[in-house]
């Protein structure tokens, strides 16, 4: 049974970026098809750590990040669920003077960006965050940051897009995209033929082949952050915790479970899926128990991992294709996509409607890989134990 569809915009990849773009485009009156090879929000967007954090991002990401910052408190009105978003604040810890110096340098560098960072010394930390154990010399606090439940946010955007009239096509892998007249022809699973004036490539870790098929190879690699969650605990952690220079990151959800991330997982035989390694999970658990004395008797009840697309310079690719009019890329968020994705969705919608956006995104142009793209090296991705930037 073959099926034909014709839409204004076809979006490849139903993660948070693709789903929020779909919803925004539909709001502008475009007809939209959102295609996912599996289920929307089931990959990195839905299984990431859940940090909603501007602090620590490279300065060039901050305008986009600030734009997204305004979306998060409006989730309930926008998609019908609040996604358990909590503006708890994000506290980035320094374990030594060098790390503290780098937190101070960052605070200075982004002073004009409106993050309102507060540097806290050892004594202040003791007073205000007494539940953090020894071995920390200071921290940088961003009161406006927080955390949310990625399982609800990503799926919620896709569900809202569907309700708004987006044609959401799950379990529909796109086999090929070609330029066709003044638009595109897509062939997808289930004998689906789709015509679209615009195509958004938001296929996450699977975006590389689509970019390459339009003459824009990119050094996109994969990373697999590992997560551990505890049983529900008494409320003790009041803020989302990160660490300068990598290590673990942790947050406690309102129901009491503590989510801790850190090590990298390894892919399974089907490289689209991954699972934490036993020793990696133990390292995360032990580090969490050491850093947070209140967790020393806790049990871990679940481990998981996700597949995320990573770029060697840790910045995503966002913006129009350099080779093909009507094609727009948005992928490679390198573990940093969750917070900014709702802002990216708005920007992508503007790029379709206006051909431009007021939010600066030049730093994320796919053109920056033009010189290196001839290399066969797929890129090393992010460092092994770097904190994902979400």
């Amino acid at each position: 049974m073959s099926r034909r569809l014709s839409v204004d915009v076809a979006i490849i990849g139903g993660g948070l970026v693709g789903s929020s773009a779909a919803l925004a485009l539909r709001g502008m009156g475009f007809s939209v098809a959102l295609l996912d090879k599996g289920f929307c929000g089931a990959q990195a967007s839905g299984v990431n750590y859940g940090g909603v954090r501007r602090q620590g991002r490279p300065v060039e990401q901050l305008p986009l990040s600030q734009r997204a910052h305004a979306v998060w408190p409006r989730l309930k009105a926008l998609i019908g669920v609040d996604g358990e978003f909590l503006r708890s604040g994000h506290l980035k810890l320094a374990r030594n003077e060098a790390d503290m110096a780098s937190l101070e340098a960052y605070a200075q560098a982004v002073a004009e960006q409106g993050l309102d960072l507060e540097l806290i010394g050892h004594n202040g930390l003791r007073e205000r965050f007494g539940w953090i154990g020894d071995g920390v010399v200071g921290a940088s606090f961003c009161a406006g940051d927080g955390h949310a439940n990625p399982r609800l946010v990503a799926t919620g955007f896709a569900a809202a897009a569907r309700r708004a009239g987006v044609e959401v096509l799950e379990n529909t892998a796109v086999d090929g995209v070609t330029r066709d007249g003044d638009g595109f022809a897509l062939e997808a699973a289930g004998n689906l033929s789709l015509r679209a004036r615009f195509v958004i490539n938001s296929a996450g870790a699977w975006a590389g082949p689509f970019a390459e098929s339009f003459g824009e190879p990119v050094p996109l690699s994969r990373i697999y952050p590992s997560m551990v969650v505890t049983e529900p605990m008494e409320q003790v952690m009041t803020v989302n915790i990160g660490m300068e220079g990598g290590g673990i990151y942790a947050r406690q959800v309102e129901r009491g479970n503590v989510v801790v991330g850190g090590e990298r997982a390894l892919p399974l035989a089907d490289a689209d899926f991954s699972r934490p390694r036993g020793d990696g999970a133990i390292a995360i658990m032990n580090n969490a128990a050491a850093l947070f004395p209140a967790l020393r008797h806790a049990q871990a009840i679940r481990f998981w991992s996700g597949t995320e697309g990573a770029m060697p310079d840790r910045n995503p690719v966002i913006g129009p294709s350099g080779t093909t009019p009507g094609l727009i890329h948005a992928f490679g968020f390198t573990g940093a996509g969750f917070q900014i994705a709702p802002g990216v969705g708005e920007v992508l919608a503007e790029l379709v409607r206006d051909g431009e956006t007021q939010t600066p995104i030049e730093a994320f142009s796919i053109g920056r890989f033009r010189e290196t793209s001839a290399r066969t090296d797929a890129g090393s991705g992010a460092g092994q134990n770097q904190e994902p930037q979400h």
Partner: protein
Amino acid sequence: MSERPQPLIVGAGPAGIRAAEALVAAGLRPLVVDEAPACGGQIYRQRLVPDRRSTRDLYGPEAPKAEALHRDFAALDGKLDYWPQALLWNLRDGRADIMVEGTSRQVAYDGLVLATGATDRTLPIPGWTLPGVFTLGGAQIALKSQGCAIGSEIVFLGSGPLLYLVAWQYMKAGAKVAAVLDTAPFTAKFNLLRGLPLFPGIVLRGMRMTAELKLGGVGLHYGVADVRIEGKNAIEAIAWRQDGMEHRLACDGVGYGLALRSETQAADLAGCRFAFNQRDRAALPERDAAGRTSVPGVYIAGDGAGIAGADAAERAGERAALALLQDRGLPHDATRAAALEAELARIGRFREVLEAAFPFPAHWMRDIADSTTLCRCEEITAGEVRSAIGQFGVHELNRLKAVSRVGMGRCQGRICGAAAAELLAHETHRGIEAVGRLRGQAPVKPVPLTLALAAQQEAAE
């Protein structure tokens, strides 16, 4: 073949014991890991200390089988490695992560026999989280292993052979059994006649137990529906509907179960392919008649890949071990293997009979009240699950888990998974086979954050 790692057997119940025995007989030295402090599995579970009861008191007519298994496993002492109270919590890349006394050891294995058994299958009903409501297996453990009754006026509820067995065991032990509530109509039991030519002894024994319960004054009620356990902080009564009439019976203990469900987490983590099994209404690891899974070197024996009972488990354990030997190029008894397979096939036919005699009331999930707690761990009601299905438009079980937390708690969906699947199938107008299965995730059971990682010894092995 000297330097190959040892085979790993997970579970020391009937299947694990017979697998170990066959491997030892062939000159291998398996490692057997088991969560319990002593061998026997759930059905032949041993007491922590002896008491005045005989094994006949404990295991009834199955006592000789229990004694044989305990004795035969003890006889393997020195010829295998045995880690009791050990939790296999993760499997990856041919290695097992096993927790023993707060320390995790990583074990490389060559050949893996999963004999992980089964637990009670239940569906949520009002009041099922009240203290004093235990699974049938739980009620049986309280009696056999701990010498305790789960109340002084006890009702047994559900479906499956265990329903009558446990009620009978309680009565024999001197506990007051107030009633047996069978969810199937009496006519379903006529199916047992078809089982007579296959296993007359078992069928007649079941009939005798039922007759003794009746003679003992225990009310047997068939075709019960809309069951509710009443009480605020303790059980006060159980209420049900039967033939259009409302019934209510005061009680203070309830044993409840709807037959058994396979423990499949380890098979999932080992990468085994699953297929939907209509009889068990669950996705189960695929295995051939010998117990080979889709992953070379990984075998499954016993109830862990479909419910067949303890007698089948013993045979399947031995059969899987013979397959392991054959696949390793070692001598194995092909005649014995064929005989075991024939016996397993006969037991399989009997299982069909039992399933017809003790059908699973899947339709309960169609009518479940919104206020009934579906997930005990996360305390999520059926109504919350229904609204998550609608709000997020999900029609696959893992997606339902992601948006509703069903199956995300401490038990990892062991208890609520079947109910969630049935409810999702009903709400989305799909067959149960079309809603997917909960993917297994480590840890298989909770592990402490302070879990220590043992130093690696494998390089030397």
